[in-house]
């Protein structure tokens, strides 16, 4: 049994409940114990355009809270995962900045040490739990399903600071899907952005980007799309209708969190995986 602090971020625990529910249901079955810690805040990533130092401080603060509890961090959101990883990359290579941040953190009785590992859903499943273990636990393989994958920009790049998957040819979600019995395939638009970060100031363009990607997937004979980031999921699932309208197309593509599909394959009842919260029609699957 491995123990991790669950770092929820902002979007997952305040509205993308389907991801959180399915995470809490599936990981215990794979011998992962998730610990809830009070005191976490935003990772700072959405504020990078406003003040990068603010982002750095917020990320360091969350890592420090986890280090105080002597736990590695499990971060389900790709945005948060990049922000925390980048913070670690910067502070571990800059003692001067690290000391300054720590002076400020000391008022909350915490310290950034840089010992904590930062793990995302994909590497937790693929590298730490491992495909063999997942295969053994599968009760209801997802047969006859062909699923498109969406990794999310911030999960795959920039590789210079260390990302859990390859930047140009990521295959880990594909491997996990195959381990739970589903089929998958690469498609030309696989690495395209969902558009979510542009919602803040260019909503029309953001929806166009999502619409174009969804339309392309729909035309390529996939049954569903799988995501591993609450921002991407919200964009491709909750905003699917709007995205379709923006590019004048009808789109009906079921969108799942990877942990929801995994839960189904592990034999968890669909009521317990938060599937009612997916706003695309997932019942068919």
């Amino acid at each position, binding site marked *: 049994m491995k123990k991790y602090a669950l770092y*929820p971020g*902002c*979007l997952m*625990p*305040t*509205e*993308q*409940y389907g991801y959180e*529910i399915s995470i809490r249901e599936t990981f215990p079955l794979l011998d992962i114990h998730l610990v*809830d*810690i*009070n*005191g*976490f*805040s*935003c990772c700072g990533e*959405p*504020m*990078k*355009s*406003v*003040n*990068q*130092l*603010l982002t750095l*401080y*917020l990320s360091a603060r969350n890592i420090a809270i986890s280090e105080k509890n002597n736990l590695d961090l499990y971060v389900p959101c790709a945005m948060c995962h990049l922000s925390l990883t980048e913070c670690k990359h910067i502070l571990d290579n800059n003692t001067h*900045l690290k000391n*300054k*941040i720590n002076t*400020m*953190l000391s*008022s*909350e009785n915490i310290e950034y040490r840089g010992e904590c590992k930062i793990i995302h859903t994909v590497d937790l499943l693929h590298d730490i739990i491992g495909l063999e273990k997942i295969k053994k636990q599968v009760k209801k393989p997802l047969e006859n399903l062909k699923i498109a994958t969406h990794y999310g*920009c*911030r999960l795959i*790049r*920039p*590789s*210079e600071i260390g990302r859990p998957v390859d930047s*140009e040819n990521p295959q880990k979600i594909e491997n996990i899907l195959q381990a739970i019995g589903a089929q998958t395939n690469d498609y030309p638009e696989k690495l*395209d*952005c969902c*558009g979510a*970060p*542009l919602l*803040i*100031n*260019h909503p029309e*363009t953001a929806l*166009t*980007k999502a619409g174009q990607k969804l339309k392309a997937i729909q035309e390529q004979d996939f049954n569903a799309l799988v995501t591993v980031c609450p921002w991407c999921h919200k964009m491709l699932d*909750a905003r699917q209708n709007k995205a379709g309208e923006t590019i004048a197309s009808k789109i009906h593509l079921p969108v799942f969190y990877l942990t929801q599909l995994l839960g189904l394959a592990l034999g968890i009842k669909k009521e317990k995986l*938060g599937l*009612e*919260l997916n*706003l695309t*029609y*997932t*019942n068919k699957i």
Partner: protein
Amino acid sequence: MSITDLTSMAGSQTQLRIEINKRLSNLQNETSDYCFQCAKCTSGCEAHKLLELEPHKIVALLKKGLIDEMVNSDIIWTCIGCYKCWERCPQKVAPVQILYTLKNMAVANGKQIPGKYTSMLQSILSIGLIQDIQEAPTYDNKTKKRDALGLPPLSKPTDPQKFQMNLTKIAVEKI
């Protein structure tokens, strides 16, 4: 300390502007040496087709020192932050980092921040997160909240005052 003070050109922002300037001149030194305008960044840019952002031109303008012109332009706010430009640059130049720093400069100069950044920052200051618990819609047109779904309480800063004090210090002075 209110949000207006945090993002306006108050006297105390001088330190912050000096710090951002230093970051920009570092970036300028790095890119001047390496970028040879192959435009591979622009060919992959997620904001290029729809919003006409051209990262290689951003690098060229920085090389020439036309910083004020960029800080005052709306084009810097079109970057999605997809990181393709940094990933694919054969010379390891990172236009995305330049763009983030230029946006920081615009904010420190008291330029109007576009979109929802201000309300997000306000929310982080008051509750630590970009938004509080929402009613999530379900497929059959109901709404559900955390507690109704059996999820544990939200993790938030335990001492909001201390939390807010530190953030304010960073935004106004510099670390």
